């Protein structure tokens, strides 16, 4: 478990003071994939670098498995960093070393014996799917392959935590998917906690369990990915969610209003995974004339999120109330547009 308590980071530059992180509280559970999303300059990189103390916080505490790591002495800190892997947007591989030697590097740092190192390197190369490329130099690899080396290297000392700072931002969409799948596999098979920093909502949608939205050094919203997708509260969150296909509520509303100038438009979103015909039953109860005018499903790693837009041409308030209540009882979120 990673606990960040009242983290503040202020950079003092010659000209000014930059408050990169302004009081962040977060706790990240063992084995989950936790996403931190935010625009450039929001303070995400600073925050993740505080987790492994590449950056010392101005105030606040970083507690990993009950241990306050800002209180460790230098030697202990170096040791604990071996158990926190990190991957980067630009991979940061050593170009003077081959793939195998790059992966071996953290093992050398940890003073692991040579024959054990080589065993481990073989195992890791297999895990990330780079068989046959052991003796290639980074300059001979594609971006996706470079990130695979980065991942293998980060896993070499069997970390419990993997920090990813924009790990897919330099990759094309297909390669991004492949890398995300690899990360999801690692998370499952090795039970490693993954902290993912990104500015891409698709990344969060595809593999994160929980999400924190960061804006101007603060966490403005956090929760399960599917809940945040279903009903984002903060305006920054909303803007991010709108980047995903079909989730721009305001745009959809305007389009539908044009098509259906009369009657009521209702947006119903479901996050639970049930086979029950929820809408059909609710319609029966209230006796309203309801038609489905738009619907889509977004698949998040914490389950599908279904959104349905309904049009009701006629009816009184009592009927609406029954209808909405029937839907809400089944865990759906209802908004009248």
């Amino acid at each position, binding site marked *: 478990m990673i606990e960040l308590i009242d983290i503040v980071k202020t950079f003092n530059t010659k000209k000014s003071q930059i408050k990169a992180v302004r009081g962040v509280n977060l706790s990240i559970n063992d084995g989950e994939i936790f996403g931190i999303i935010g625009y450039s300059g929001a303070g995400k990189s600073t925050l993740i670098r505080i987790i492994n103390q590449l950056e010392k916080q101005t105030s606040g505490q970083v507690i990993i498995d009950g241990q306050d790591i800002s209180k460790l002495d230098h030697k202990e800190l170096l040791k604990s960093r071996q158990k926190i892997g990190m991957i980067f947007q630009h991979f940061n591989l050593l170009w*003077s*070393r081959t793939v195998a030697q790059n992966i071996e590097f953290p093992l*050398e740092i940890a003073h692991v014996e040579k024959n054990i190192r080589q065993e481990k390197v073989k195992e890791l190369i297999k895990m990330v799917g780079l068989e046959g490329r052991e003796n290639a130099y980074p300059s001979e690899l594609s971006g996706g392959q470079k990130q695979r080396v980065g991942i293998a290297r980060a896993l070499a000392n069997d970390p419990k935590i993997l920090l990813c700072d924009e790990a897919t931002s330099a990759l094309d969409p297909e390669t991004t998917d492949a890398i995300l799948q690899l990360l999801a596999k690692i998370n499952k098979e090795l039970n490693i906690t993954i902290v993912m920093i990104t500015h891409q909502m698709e990344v969060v949608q595809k593999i994160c369990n929980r999400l924190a939205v960061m804006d101007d050094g603060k966490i403005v919203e956090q929760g399960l990915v599917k809940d945040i997708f279903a009903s984002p509260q903060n305006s920054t969150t909303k803007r991010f969610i709108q980047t995903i296909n079909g989730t721009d509520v305001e745009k959809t509303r305007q389009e539908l209003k044009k098509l259906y100038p009369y009657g009521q438009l209702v947006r119903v979103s479901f996050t639970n995974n049930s086979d029950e015909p929820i809408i059909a039953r609710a319609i029966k109860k209230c006796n309203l004339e309801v038609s489905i005018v738009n619907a889509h499903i977004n698949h998040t790693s914490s389950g599908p999120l279904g959104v349905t837009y309904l049009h009701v041409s006629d009816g009184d308030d009592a009927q609406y109330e029954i209808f909405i209540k029937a839907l809400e009882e089944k865990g759906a979120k209802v908004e009248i547009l």
Partner: protein
Amino acid sequence: MSWLNDINWDQMFTAFIETIYMSSVSLFFTIIFGLIIGILLFVTNSQGLIVNKFLNKITDLIVNILRAVPFIILMIILIPFTQALVGSMLGASAALPSLIFAASPFYARLCCIAFMEVDKGTIEASKAMGASNWQIITKVLLPESFPALVSGACVTAISLISYTAMAGAIGSGGLGNLAYQYGFVRRNDAILYTATAIITLIVLGLQWLSDYLAAKIDKR
């Protein structure tokens, strides 16, 4: 080809060996001192591994002063030091201290530039892996800047060869000394041009070696 008879080839060969001796021994020490000073400059700078403003400024100042002093003057200033160390002011060995003093700050500067070129991200990644400063220097900084360090060493070697020619003027032997004492002072054109040609060939050979090595070791 009668002009060839104007040359004492034993003398020419001895001078060649002296030049090679002075250049290679001073290059050896220059690389050692230059690397140490270069690392010191790099790690203590404001974004370095062990930020130390005071040490950085002092080292920087010494390097700049030594580089500003013309070689010929440096040699004169160092006469007492050389005499104490080598016991004489004549001969190839006597040129070594001033050669090393002149070239080390130059190479240190080249090393520092080479280290600056190392991707900050790789140093950051190494820190994240728990590497100590010593491990970062030996396993990241030096190997990642190796091609630049090698070509810097070749540039330094070429400067050292021209310094040895100057050192020759005050009696340290070598091809420069031969060209000056016999070629110029005694008006023996054959010696003057032959010694010059040999020095030129050495420099060209070094440059070729430098390009060859750079292509071979650079995996970027």
